[in-house]
């Protein structure tokens, strides 16, 4: 399990197995998608329990996730493909629900699903329904977004309150009998990205990341590592809805590590930050955007959280499953 939690174990697995086997320069940065010859290309497999949760299901998640991976490359998504692995006995009406929500999500994002595949495996060989989507999009040659491009002084922006998707899914499993006024934040971000890129000058948006697995903390660590710079967050500035904070407190988890599916982190030149923030806030999906921190020179590769006390806590990548460290 440790290899799936989005932490360092996942990365180690990827580096040890896939990077070695498939080694090539486009794969090497391990970004959300690859960009070459003006085209962006990405693929993702979706497994989620439960398949249906407040605010979404595996269907719109699979569309939005891939749309967002393209958007994070600065691409305008063009086409998607979808492949299904279904467990024998998976109810047809559930499949209808999933495909309907995929169609809706694709329409909302303005990206047609143009090809696909379905396999049915024996009962017990899968958990209901898995979906893999791939997408292609076009990238303006002037747009070059890279995690390594963050520079000291840049602003770190989040497009809205964090942690809603992860907490919603966790509670939707129904084991805890906690009902919270929460829905997943799953949404396609290509439109929001277009608004952001339009509002800033060329090169002023350094990089975009969607904080899915491992949450904001993991994405920021990747940016800090790739840029050999520090990310310094302001604890009070990170937007977290009270219901998310309350649930996280109860569950004993930190919202910074909880997955989002409709939020993004943008690193933007400090001069362009006000315009970027205005542009994001003008869009319905970016209404809650906020500057949550800055890129700093020191200490390279680390993410620090300035607490309300003026202390600086290290926000590290998790190696595996979270375990208390207090003796």
């Amino acid at each position, binding site marked *: 399990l440790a290899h799936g939690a989005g*932490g360092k174990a996942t990365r180690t697995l990827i580096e040890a197995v896939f990077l070695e086997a498939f080694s090539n320069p486009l794969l090497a940065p391990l970004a959300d998608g690859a960009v070459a010859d003006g085209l962006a290309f990405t693929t993702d497999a979706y497994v*989620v329990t439960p398949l249906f949760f407040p605010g979404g299901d595996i269907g719109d998640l699979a569309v939005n996730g891939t749309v967002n991976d393209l958007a994070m490359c600065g691409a305008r998504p063009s086409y998607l493909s979808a492949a299904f692995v279904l467990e024998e006995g998976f109810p047809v009406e559930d499949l209808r629900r999933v495909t309907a929500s995929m169609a809706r999500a694709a329409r909302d994002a303005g990206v047609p699903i143009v090809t696909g595949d379905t396999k049915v495996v024996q009962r017990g060989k899968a958990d209901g329904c898995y979906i893999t989507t791939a997408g292609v999009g076009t990238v303006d040659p002037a747009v070059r977004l890279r995690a390594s491009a963050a520079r000291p002084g840049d602003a770190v922006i989040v497009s809205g309150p964090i942690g809603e998707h992860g907490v919603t899914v966790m509670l939707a499993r129904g084991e805890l009998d906690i009902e919270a006024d929460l829905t997943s934040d799953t949404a396609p971000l290509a439109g929001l990205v277009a608004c952001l890129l339009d509002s800033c000058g060329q090169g002023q948006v350094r990089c975009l990341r969607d904080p899915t697995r491992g949450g904001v903390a993991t994405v920021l660590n990747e940016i800090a590592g790739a840029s050999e710079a520090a990310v310094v967050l302001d604890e009070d500035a990170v937007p977290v809805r009270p219901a998310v904070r309350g649930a996280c407190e109860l569950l004993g988890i930190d919202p910074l590590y909880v*997955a989002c599916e409709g939020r993004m982190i943008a690193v933007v030149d400090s001069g362009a930050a006000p315009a970027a923030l205005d542009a994001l806030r003008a869009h319905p999906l970016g209404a809650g955007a906020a500057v949550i921190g800055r890129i700093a020179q020191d200490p390279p590769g680390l993410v620090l959280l300035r607490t309300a006390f003026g202390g600086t806590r290290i926000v590290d990548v998790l190696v595996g499953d979270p375990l208390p460290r207090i003796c």
Partner: protein
Amino acid sequence: MGACARVEVRVDGIVQGVGFRPFVHRLATGLGLHGVVGNDERGVLIEVEGNPEAVAAFTDAVRHRPPPLASVERVTTRPLPVTGEPGFRIVPSTGRDHGRALISPDVATCDDCLRELFDPADRRHLYPFINCTACGPRFTIVTASPYDRAGTTMAPFAMCPACAAEYHDPSSRRFHAQPVCCPACGPRLRLLVPAGTEDARPPGRWAEVAGDPIAGAANVLRRGGVLAVKGIGGYHLAVRADLEDAVATLRARKRRAERPFAVMTPTLATARHLCTTDPHEERLLTAPQRPIVLLARRHIPSTPRVPEPGLASAQGVRAGDGGDGSACGAEQRSGDVAAAVGPLVDASVAPLIDPSVVTLIAPSVAPCDRMLGVMLPYSPVHHLLLREFPQPIVLTSGNVSDEPIAYLDADALSLLGGLADAFLLHDRAIRTRADDSVVRVVRGREVPVRRSRGHVPRPSPLVRAARRPVLACGAELKHTFCLARGRHALVSQHIGDLENYETLRSFTEGVRHFERLFGIRPEVVAHDPHPEYLSTKYALERGDVQLVAVQHHHAHIASCLTDNGAAGPVIGVAFDGLGYGLDRTLWGGEFLVADLTGFRRAGHLATVPMPGGAAAIRQPWRMAAAYLADLSPSVPDSVRQGPTDGAAHLASISGRFPDGGHRDPADGAAQLTGLSMSFPDIGRRGHAEGNAGTAGLAVRERNAARWDAVTALAARAVNAPLTSSAGRLFDAVAAIAIGRDTVSYEGQAAVELERAAAPGEAGTYPCRIIGAGRAEGPGAGRADGGEEMFVAMGHDLVRAVVDDLGAGAEPGVVAARFHNGVARLIVEGCVRLREQTGLCVVALSGGVFQNARLVAGTTAGLEERGFTVLTHKNVPPNDGGISLGQAAVAAALSHPG
């Protein structure tokens, strides 16, 4: 006569910077011997020539009567040809092989220097930087080796002719005293207050006050102001200890809700006045290390008073009552400071209280505590300040919350600027920060609680020498690291909690400093196997070394063995908060059969889920909920074995715990709006039973809003890792018995439970010990696997606590019986293991053994049954000792077979 011999005498140990060469000079000339003495890279090298009997008397004195601060480890001699060269000379230091020589720890001002300090005829009369070869700063001012003036922060101060004469005179107390100085040539004390006028104070600007800085600083204290004082190992914050408003203000500004403050008393007599002291404690109080000694108070104030108005510095600040773990008053901070500074340095204000009638320590100093941390002045600045203001003062590390102590002037001014009304500082830089050491006496034995200033970098001897240089990276909280070479293990100063960036830097930079200073290049790096410890990650990033992962509780036991010069095998009882176990659960109530090279987990407390992971550490009531939900008649069934898949449901959520009390625990509760919960029966074995038995419990009622949700976390194993921790058992009982539901500092619940325990109570609770399972696979370490492993049912103690309270027993009595019950289960576990292994030596380690009541009960019980008990002497039983244990294990493993 006529016979003549020449002998080379080599002395290893702490023999530099402690007046060793003048001692040798005096000794040799007194015995009529000729020869030379000099420092080299290993220590002191002497050649003496003369009457063979005198030579023998000389080597005997070097061995057995060295200067007080010297620590002679070895004296070796070898005959040399007689040269006939007359006289006795001190020769310049030789050797460029840096750092094999040991550096002395910092030493409190000696009596000779004190006499001069207060002698109007002395040229250093009232000079705050007086020192000699027998006293003064050492480790904290050393910048490079070898230890000479150029390698200290005194390098920028050129000696005046008078000081230089003393420095070069072998008969002087200041011969080669590296920090020697005087008013003509040395550092200068200054008092700073906020710049500007009462109406306009530019923030962050400070102005020097004219006149005597000590008198001005004393007035700041007298008026109830917060004074930042630059000490030996960092900045302290000081207020007079008798004014509740002043102390409460300091608490509010420092954001330290409940953790007790230590006080510095002007004299031993004042300390005796406040606390009972025995000769052992008095010896510690007055020792050259000058630690904080935890003493039993004569008078325990019940609750902090409501602050009264009237003090300039306290206006506008109202600290919380310290009961809810929240810090407060921050918003008023800046205005408050501005309001405070006007009249602070008005030297005409007379002392408000006659020192002879001081009887009280304000309640907020150590709220409701039976103990008080007391230290005596250890630097000339303290002596001068407490002569001007001869009353107990609170003297607490200069930091906010859990940050490391400030030690650089610029940092101190910016970090403490909002906390202090004035700064008493000087221009002798501190190179390395070192907090005050803390110690307590339990059953006539000294138990270190924090080993830092005064002790570092004195080496701990290793039982098995390191064949290759070792760096041990320590744990996470109360962090220390350790460098070892040969038989010497050099444990670092207390570093703190690594999660703070400043602390992590202090660790990584500290390692570099130690490596340079002692010329050690680690080839073996020992670390804790906990994957999330920042010290583990640091270890894994060091290239080109052999890594050795040392299990946390094995390291605890190895540190205790090392403290006692033992190698084992022993029965090791490691009771602490948490450590990463070989089965990936969190251990902490462990019975090991261990030696330095390996261990077998032979028994442990029954596991229980920690609902919410680290949240369960900040909120002991969660542990109460977990234990109570786990209570059932068929107990062995409820002992869940094997690794948790507690995070199996976290596939899409990867949570990191907001550790260390950075967020107010009450915060989350307040923000539960938007959450509604329903609680159907969750169908877990024993759950209904537990609920039935606990329905009326106060702890449950106080936490009713979240009780069932937290119980469900435990039952569903959602972010509820299993632990066998003794610390968590104490937490659960503290919540149930004394209402300690949340904590604002580590170990608070257990500390308060110990404090609450009725002193004379002899009753005890039974606790079953059940043989179950086998020694775990790789966990068997080097010892033979396959032996029976027992489980001690901590649940029984919790049930007894609940029943006893239900029957109307007083919380203090219940707390006492619980302590006695834990002591008894330890004794019984050890008896079992003696039957199994024949071992009759028990080593006690882990933070839980800072609990004096538990140590006393356990030791007495074990000794009654014929065991020999090893406890800590040198490093703390808590995680501050882990690095020494890791180094000892790594060193022992470097030996074949």
